[in-house]
């Protein structure tokens, strides 16, 4: 300090270098713009390819028809209904179990080694390839519990695939709720359960919703674990949760895309469009729910 002070007054102690700083800022802005551009370009390329190939095949009969060996007569209704049923069951399992586990970790478990070990393991589970879950689902739900390769077995397996994602997202959302919110509820004579239900969960709800929706979109797009547990590729009857074969849209895409004929490429693309619309609708719904949940939140 003394040395700095000793420098002659003539020598300036600050070098603003405004030009360089402005340039750095511009470069960083450019880099960020480039990053988002890559994403947008990839998305546009994907959408264009799919739309160009698939749109000519889209019509009401395609949506409401049964599959056929002839591409011009085939439909995706069983797969579409299968995907929707699957999504509902996956959501019904994931919602309570995922939030419950996250609330336990965030609000009830002590801050100790065991808890941290548990958290680390859940994070690791999120990185396990989904096909491994398929093998697990085959062993547990299909064989051990004897459910067979039915829709429910697939849904339970997919629920396991996305549970780690839901738990991690919900846990982070719960942890982001300021401690003052918990104290505020306690100070009014709330029990721990009332505090969690009335104060923490409402405050974390938008974040939890986001996590669940992202995870659900992933579940709707999964094919690999369902192939392993024995989902069918050609189903001509409506799926039922606990009996009979079932298929879902991604598996339809998978099987049709493998065919050499160009027409099947077309109906595969058309099916992809249906999946995208399904996910879009789900996200729109989530956006509305999220907006409603966060209308009072202004941190």
């Amino acid at each position: 300090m003394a040395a700095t002070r000793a420098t002659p007054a003539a020598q300036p102690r600050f070098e603003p270098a405004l030009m360089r700083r402005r340039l750095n800022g511009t470069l960083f802005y450019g880099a960020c713009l480039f990053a988002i551009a890559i994403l947008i370009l990839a998305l546009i390329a994907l959408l264009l390819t799919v739309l160009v190939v698939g749109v000519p095949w889209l019509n009401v009969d395609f949506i409401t028809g049964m599959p056929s060996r002839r591409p011009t007569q085939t439909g995706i209704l069983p797969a579409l209904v299968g995907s929707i049923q699957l999504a509902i069951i996956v959501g019904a399992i994931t919602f309570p179990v995922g939030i419950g586990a996250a609330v336990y970790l965030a609000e009830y478990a002590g801050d100790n080694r065991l808890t941290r070990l548990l958290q680390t393991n859940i994070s690791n589970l999120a990185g396990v390839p989904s096909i491994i879950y398929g093998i697990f689902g085959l062993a547990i739900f299909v064989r051990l519990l004897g459910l067979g390769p039915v829709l429910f077995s697939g849904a339970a397996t997919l629920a396991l695939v996305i549970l780690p994602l839901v738990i991690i997202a919900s846990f982070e959302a719960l942890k982001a709720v300021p401690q003052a919110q918990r104290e505020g509820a306690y100070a009014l004579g709330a029990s721990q359960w009332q505090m969690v239900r009335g104060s923490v969960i409402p405050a974390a709800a938008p974040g939890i919703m986001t996590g669940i929706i992202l995870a659900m979109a992933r579940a709707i797009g999964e094919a690999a674990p369902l192939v392993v547990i024995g989902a069918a590729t050609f189903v001509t009857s409506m799926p039922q949760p606990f009996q009979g074969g079932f298929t879902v849209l991604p598996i339809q895409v998978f099987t049709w895309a493998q065919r050499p004929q160009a027409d099947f490429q077309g109906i595969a693309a058309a099916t992809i469009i249906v999946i995208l619309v399904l996910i879009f609708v789900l996200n729109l719904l989530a956006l509305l729910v999220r907006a409603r949940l966060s209308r009072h939140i202004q941190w």
Partner: protein
Amino acid sequence: MNAAQAGSTLDAPVDGHTPPAQASAAAIPTIHVATDRGSDGAPSRPLGQTIVELRGVSCYYGSFRAVKDVSVTAAKHDVTALIGPSGCGKSTLLRTFNRMNDLVPSFRATGEILLDGQDLYSKSVDPVAVRRRVGMVFQKPNPFPKSIYDNVAFGPRVNGFKGNMDELVEHCLRKAALWDEVKDKLKQSGMALSGGQQQRLCIARTIAIEPEVILMDEPCSALDPRSTLQIEELMAELKKDYTIVIVTHNMQQAARASDVTVMMTMDTSDRAGYVVEQAETIQIFTNPKNQLTEDYVSGRFG
């Protein structure tokens, strides 16, 4: 320091006969100050009935003793201010009054903390029940991310309120001098209000559970002077129905708004907070018995 000595500070004469300089020499090692119960002079105002009484209370975080051997009282319908430099354990002490420190796993309190004669830390006492009787307003306004109405209704709901909720919400918002500002937007978020309004909402929320004591932990430190004044006026109004204990770093606020002041400081040897003296506010600010108090309230220390 025993309870009788602490209690006696309340009826100590305003014009203490011990010069501050002499008192401080004796007070630093022995802590207690006012031992001259009724020796001369009459109390400057009638004594209230004691509602909160601490007897030999020490607070620990793990093995660290944050507050040692505190014996103080708060009388019904008084505003009792806790003052003292940062880190002297004012907030820790305040948070024993409603067992808020139970949320800190390593926390432990010894001694007796009595609310209407009942020991709050006895095994048979449920902290959830304590907090219904002893409300708390925090340093930073912490409204819930709910509507204004639901913020006020939260406490009554969790405590099984059976009456007319609309009436209660209006009553509490009126009591907190907020009704006229929010009556047309009860469904809007409590978080959309200004800082001062948020703090009054938190006060409304607190009185909705009809507590006997309201604790305020530096309630104005995040507010501008105008909002601060509103809160102080509110306190003067609220003490007719409730007993208020307030922690404040604002000397003027303690002088303006409180009836009794408890001066705390930190023992430099073991970093534990202790009570220097408790006396009527006017005495603390005009004629303190202890040099430490005089230095602190006059701005020479802390």
